[in-house]
């Protein structure tokens, strides 16, 4: 009843000795995530709350049999950290770092096409399978176990929608924050196809926003390939053209593509109801269950 991670996932944390890395490693472990190692160049041999630290990701993977990593490395070094992770045989890399330069990500994106590893992020809250494991910074206490999948480009919007779902008694199978940058590893289509293949996920919530054409592509995918019902939400209806709204990807070009209207239209055409408010999204999901 989940995609990508569960309580068997063996996690290495890149940047485990930094402030964010340390704090969120504790939070992840407390939630039940099986954090088996840290990787920080020059800090090999130390430990963080009993979790052994290695100098290299390769060392951590070899010694601790890790199969996923979470990257808490500052922006200037984040791409290098992801490259390092992609050169091992991890199944999954989750990059939390915000502010990774776009050209670094273009090179990472190229590398992704040559390896079997899946990347989530960067600039994302990570993902969680409630009751089993979380990889990232999501607040575990608002999630509940259940059968609704969630994929979102925004962290806090994920929390908002999840909170509304949980308060109405609707639990989640897995929630994935894919990040708001223009170039990301896992996009809507990738996540939706995983949810489609998961027999326990009964419905999916997809939270998109202005900018790019990922939501339009997702709508085409839903129309062609999905039996699992999807409820949508699009943030940024009131955003003026040409202005960057926080997320690097959230900018409406002057030419009519990437607007909230075009995304809502595409989703509606694919049979996806798009709520005007987070509450309406939950009402739409309820109808599917």
């Amino acid at each position, binding site marked *: 009843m989940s995609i990508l991670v569960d309580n068997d996932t063996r996690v290495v944390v890149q940047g485990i000795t930094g402030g964010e890395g340390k704090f969120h490693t504790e939070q992840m472990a407390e939630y039940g995530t099986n954090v088996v190692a840290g990787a920080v160049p020059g800090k090999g041999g130390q430990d963080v709350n009993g979790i052994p630290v290695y100098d290299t990701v390769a060392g951590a993977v070899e010694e601790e049999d890790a199969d996923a990593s979470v990257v808490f490395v500052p922006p200037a070094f984040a791409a290098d950290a992801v490259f390092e992770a992609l050169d091992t045989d991890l199944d999954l890399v989750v990059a939390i770092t915000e502010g990774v330069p776009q050209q670094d990500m*273009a090179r990472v994106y*190229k590398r992704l096409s040559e390896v079997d590893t899946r990347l989530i992020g960067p600039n994302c809250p990570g993902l969680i399978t409630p009751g089993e494991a979380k990889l990232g910074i999501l607040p575990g206490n608002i999630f509940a176990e259940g059968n609704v999948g969630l994929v979102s*480009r925004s962290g806090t919007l994920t929390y908002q929608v999840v909170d509304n779902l949980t308060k109405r008694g609707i639990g989640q199978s897995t929630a994935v924050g894919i990040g708001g940058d223009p170039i990301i590893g896992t996009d809507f289509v990738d996540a939706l196809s995983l949810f489609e293949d998961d027999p326990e996920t009964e419905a999916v919530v997809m939270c998109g926003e202005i900018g790019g054409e990922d939501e339009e592509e997702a709508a085409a995918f839903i129309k062609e390939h999905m039996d699992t019902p999807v409820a949508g939400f699009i*943030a940024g209806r*009131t955003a003026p053209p040409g202005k960057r*709204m926080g997320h690097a990807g959230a900018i409406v070009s002057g*030419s009519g593509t990437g607007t909230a209207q075009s995304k809502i239209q595409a989703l509606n055409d694919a049979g996806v109801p798009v709520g005007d408010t987070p509450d309406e999204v939950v009402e739409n999901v309820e109808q599917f269950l």
Partner: protein
Amino acid sequence: MKLHEYQAKGVFAEAGIPVPESELAETVDEVVDAAGRIGYPVAVKAQVQVGGRGKAGGIELVDDEAEAREAADAILGMDLKGLHVGSVLVEEAVDFTDELYVGVTMDRTVGRPVAMVSTRGGVNIEEVAEEDPDAIARVHVDPSFGMHPYQARNAVYDAGVDREVARDVASVLTTLYDLWDDKDATDIEVNPLMVTADDEVIAADAVMNVDDDALFRHPDLREMEEEGDVDGDDLEAKADEYGFDYVRLDGDVGIIGNGAGLVMTTLDLVDYYGGAPANFLDIGGGAKAERVTNALDMVFSDPNVESVVFNIFGGITRGDEVAKGINEALESFEEIPKPVVVRLAGTNAEEGMEILNTDLVTVEGTLEEAVQRAVEFADAEGEQ
């Protein structure tokens, strides 16, 4: 970060792309002096970061000193699409036979840079792209290898550029790509790239936008950002100082929240409930009390704001820190300028609610209620 035309032309010239002779001027006399040195006719071009300067009266072609004075007088100090014109570029007028377009940008749908060439330069290239996409030749570049010279040639031949200048245009395109790569540009373009009767190519305009996230490795560009920062919105400049993601809008409900998606959603809900957002302000993740205080200061300095809604869903951000910041900001006023509505959820929200001085703010439990309340307040204040 957007470079001004004169800055981008400086970068292009240094890299070997031919540009017209030009000088930057800030007064009418400086314009006349520069024009005298360059030789008439010259173009007088407003240095502001907006498209369509020509149509808006920001570019004049002048033939003598009297015309130069008149144009300089009209353009310097003018308000161009909301931006104050503080300087102009005085530039040699190029006699051309053709106008081309060349540019490099990121194609986010494939995660790769794309180089573009068109023989339909000198016009709004976005319109060309929509009406006649085939009029623009495109070639995608592998970012780990860079652009091969043959790719530039292919694009130039595909676009149907005249053989006499094809080699020079390909060379401009390769140089643009290298600059795009070296300087962490997000997009870079020359429109028009003018072709003269002698088959020379000259970059008559220059656009270069740089990835803010990569400025840490470009101290030279950071310097240009400071030097060029003479126009623009005062509030947005203040937001830069505080390090906020802030966008000013024309409504009256001030909005502060954490996380871009949630803040955008708050804006949309204000609109949904019949109000009008005054701004987008994301305090970011993990904000401490001081940052929250700055955010309130920021929003209150917009004279259009009639009410403020705080929407915090803590993940990394902690409710108690936010509440402390709100208290500190509001307690510093003898009289709070406008009503403030707060909605706190997530990490340490309960602790935050205990700390929050509820004599100074209105608390609502849900996002929807908070937004509706803020809209009501703004309407009531607006009527006073």
